[in-house]
């Protein structure tokens, strides 16, 4: 905390502090201080530029080119053609966009409330609550690829558990993963199985931080359990809700492993992330085209990030 030694009043607006301190007490900065400062600012900046900004911006730049990834001299500038083709003659694009949106809404509407519900139940100091917590949280430890294998054993048409059980009731085998009208939902259930545990842990942490006195006060005022939750506890969870929202948006946009494992992200399971992969990785090597899809994804994520940051700043100002 170099700041406090400069004698700036602690109430001063944060961004101004180092600058003012620097000016007023320039003579106190030893060479070593400067070196340390340069190191502390320089290294993270360099890492961020090299690992975030350069790849992101070159991806945007490449999206206006045609390139097979072999030799820099084969990059050809083609303007907006990649975008025009993606929007006009690339059949998987709109389904992918739509599936990402469904994914997001489904995650917000199904596993998130279930996670919250489980967290509220587990917050009541039930017996064996730790055991329940561990059991529900367990799928989160698995990678989505593993989740994909597990659920494929359940969903397989000829050899899967679900159809084997249905068969006992005389139901004809259902093609869970091959029917393009069904497979997205089948996959979403598998993804939710994991997401519920994640949401539960987050909400459980949030609930633990709610001051029990609030609940007590509500109870003394005669509020029912539901009223206490709706008007006292839930509003107190606001910070957690923002975290949950952000995580859910991120999870939906980066959803990839599960569908890629199941059928390579085709036939009803198209997602933007998969289209990027199909075009860039693999033998296709359509770097420019894939970059254009990635750029579209970047724009979509930016919208959410902007909403989130605005929200955070507004909060801080309050």
């Amino acid at each position, binding site marked *: 905390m170099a700041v406090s030694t400069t004698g700036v009043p602690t109430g001063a607006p944060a961004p101004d502090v180092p600058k003012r301190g620097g000016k007023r007490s320039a003579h106190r900065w030893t060479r070593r201080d400067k070196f340390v400062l340069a190191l502390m600012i320089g290294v993270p900046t360099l890492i961020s530029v090299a690992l975030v900004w350069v790849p992101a911006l070159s991806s945007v730049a490449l999206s206006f080119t045609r390139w097979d990834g072999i030799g820099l001299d084969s990059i050809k500038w083609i303007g907006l053609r990649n975008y025009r083709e993606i929007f006009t*003659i690339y059949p998987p694009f709109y389904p992918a966009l739509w599936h990402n949106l469904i994914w997001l809404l489904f995650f917000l509407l199904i596993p998130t409330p279930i996670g919250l519900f489980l967290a509220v139940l587990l917050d009541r100091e039930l017996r064996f609550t730790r055991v329940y917590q561990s059991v529900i949280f367990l799928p989160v430890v698995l990678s989505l690829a593993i989740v*994909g294998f597990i659920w494929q054993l359940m969903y*397989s048409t000829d050899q899967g558990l679900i159809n084997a059980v249905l068969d006992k009731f005389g139901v004809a085998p259902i093609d869970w993963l091959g029917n393009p009208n069904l497979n997205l939902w089948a996959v979403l259930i598998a993804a939710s199985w994991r997401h519920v545990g994640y949401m539960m842990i987050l909400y459980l942490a949030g609930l633990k931080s709610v001051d029990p006195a609030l609940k007590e006060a509500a109870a003394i005022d005669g509020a029912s359990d539901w009223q206490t939750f709706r008007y006292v506890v839930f509003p107190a969870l606001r910070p957690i809700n923002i975290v949950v929202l952000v995580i859910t948006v991120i999870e939906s946009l980066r959803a990839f*492993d599960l569908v*890629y494992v*199941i*059928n390579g992200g085709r036939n009803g399971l198209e997602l933007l992330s998969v289209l990027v992969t199909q075009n860039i*990785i693999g033998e*296709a090597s359509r770097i420019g085209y894939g970059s254009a899809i990635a750029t579209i994804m970047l724009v979509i994520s930016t919208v959410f990030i902007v909403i989130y940051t605005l929200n955070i700043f507004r909060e801080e100002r309050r």
Partner: protein
Amino acid sequence: MRKPMLPNPDEPVLPAAVFNRRLFLGAGAVALGSIGLAACGGSSSSGGGSSSSGNATGTVTFGSNASDDVPKKAFQATFAAYKSSGGGDVKVNTVDHNTFQEQINNYLQGRPDDVFTWFAGYRMRFFAKKGLVGDVSDVWQKIGGNFTDAIKTASTGEDGKQYFVPLYNYPWAVHYRKSVFEANGYQPPTTLDEMVTLGQQMKKKGLAPLAFADKDGWPAMGTFDYLNMRINGYDFHINLMGGKEAWDSPKVATVFDTWKRLLEISQPNSLGRTWQEAAQTVAQKKAGMYLLGTFVGQQFAEGAERDDLTFFPFPVVDSSVGADAVEAPIDGFMMAKRPQNGAGAKHLLEYLGSAEAENTYLATDSNDVAVHKAADTSKYNALQKQASALIAGAKSISQFLDRDADPTFASTVAIPAFQSFIKNPADAASIAKNMEAQKKSIYQS
């Protein structure tokens, strides 16, 4: 074929492929891709150390996509034989089959091994044209007499030089169980009409006539390839693959129309099924026939069940075109542009182009057939003999859609297009129109 999206079908597969290894490897490929190749590059740099001319009997590095047990052992045996025949050490870097294929661009631009596994066809010519692989024409001067002209053409780049040394190939054909046909008095059909009639008969018996699986996207390419070659001929097929013919032409429309007839006798729900699962239904006598490469045999238990497996060539559709084109992908080797040990690499390639090398390899991996004229065929099993006869009698040989066509087109256009067609055969016209629009964009360079 041995497709972009999947590892080697030569794997010894569990009798019931409940747990789909391919998917597992696919995911592993994504996760481990860079690591695997990094490891590759690293060891190739530590391997040679000799000058570019190199030492013919010095150590050679070998990049292998044979990540499955059977081919891996087969290569071990082959390299042991190479050493005992007076060759040098071969340092093998095995990378997951899928990963190897997907990362080939980066691999070739980094520090590839001296010699590495690859496939004949457009994909080989593409890298040759880009100047990413070494010219092995002088090796061919020594081994050229061992191979037919068709094989030599398949190993030759656009500039007329050779860039590929073949090892084996395997045909695609319609497989069935002899016992099923005998029990029902079925005859292998020779025309498509007969095949459809046979299919109707099987349906009445409660048998799924034609096993079919396209969850992974590539198996349907085999059906398209054969129909196109039978209806429009080999030359048209190759031109279509090369982007020189239109996908929305009436000729291709006929192919889709004919395919509809096959779909009527095909297993439904094919988009949720893997080829292993489809092969299982044939093994269990729930389905009658299955069009696939001979690697389908891996799903049949060794012994009586495997011996019961046989095939007939894809039937004639148009008698004026006939059935003399066979789909038989060739696997083999290429050499790095700048090998660490060039002399050693060529010495090894020369050995790999010999009958002895093919015999040693096929002694372990018996799902394929040799391409060498003097290879020992006396140890072939019945299926291998049949496969080798089928290929020998072929006038022209195709390599599979994803090896004959631009790989970008194959993976990002053909797969989703065929899958949409299987879902809604009535949309064939609009699907073909879209394929043509995307083809125009992809094939221009």
